[in-house]
């Protein structure tokens, strides 16, 4: 399943990085601690978080994640948005809380990495 397909099925808003929508997703990871994401996420993962600052994009780039999904209708900071645009990291927005969003992703067949 690609980033774009997930975005469409769940009605996620593509905030930036539409050039990355064709990328195949390898799984999902949900966490709000950057150090945890650095340690445990895997390349191609969809990262679900409520953090909206610039370092989120740095971590996504470093770990080669497929996309960042912001929950609860949160918007990225201006700096984060600029960095995401530059690094071509798709940032998607959902109105759902994290638990709800992850549940739906799981129902769609997206799994975490254990």
């Amino acid at each position, binding site marked *: 399943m690609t980033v774009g397909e997930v975005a469409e099925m769940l009605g996620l808003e593509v905030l930036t990085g539409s050039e990355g929508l064709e990328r195949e997703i390898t799984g999902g990871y949900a966490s709000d*601690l*950057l*150090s945890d994401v*650095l340690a445990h996420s895997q390349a191609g993962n969809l990262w679900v978080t409520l*953090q*909206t*600052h*610039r*370092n989120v994009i*740095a*971590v996504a*780039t*470093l770990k080669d994640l497929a996309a960042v999904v912001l929950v609860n209708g949160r918007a990225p*900071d201006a700096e984060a948005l600029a960095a995401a645009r530059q690094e071509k990291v798709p940032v998607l927005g959902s109105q759902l809380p994290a638990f709800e969003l992850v549940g739906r992703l799981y129902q769609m067949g997206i799994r975490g990495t254990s």
Partner: protein
Amino acid sequence: MTLALFKADLHIHTCLSPCADLSMGPRTIVDKAAWEGLDVIGVSDHNSCENALAVVQAARQKNLRVLPGMEVTSREEVHILAIFDHVEQALWLQEVVYDHLHGENDAEAFGLQAVVNEDHDVVAFNNRLLAGATELSIEQVVDSIRDLDGLAIASHVDREAFGIIGQLGFIPAQLRLDALELVGNTCPEQVSRRSPPCARFPFVRSSDAHSVEDIGKVSTSFLLVEPTTAEIRKALRGQEGRRVLLGDITVGGSVAEKQVVG
């Protein structure tokens, strides 16, 4: 005993911080601080103090006190500002931090980490993951700072990212913080209303400058005998006539104007 006003910006990053401008060299910082009428600045890079001595040296000929320090990231990803009188104290803290900080920096993702001398020559690039979190709990970070006789201030409590309220939602009861820092226009009453435990602490304002133009944009004036951490702590506690004047108070130019008999 003569008390005087000291205008301080206790939270300034140098080009060692991956997220700071490379133009943040010692002389640039010191010159801008003097131009802004600051009497005291704190040097606080993320999880490192390797540029602190260079800034102290750059300020030698200036009427500016540089307090070396660091902004430590706890394992809860809360930023805590450490402020010392002497570089040696900061280096002791750095040793503790380095023992508990893992990973290598990726300059493309996080930015360059330039270690410079007072003339802004690049001496080395630090390759630790300074943008990362240490394994130290917030209590361990604050205790390490206090045990080294430093001031421990919770950074930017009015900002969600990496602020103690944003990350934890509360302030642990036994945490030995000296103060809480505001970086925006938020007033302490607003913060305390939103998060009542904040009302227990004194507040300071600083710029958290990552680029030259932000230095001194926000500051705190302290009524002190001399610009040391012990005096600042007295001011934070309102002891012996020392006081904190929160906000952006412009202090008059001459020394005479600044002196208040206490």
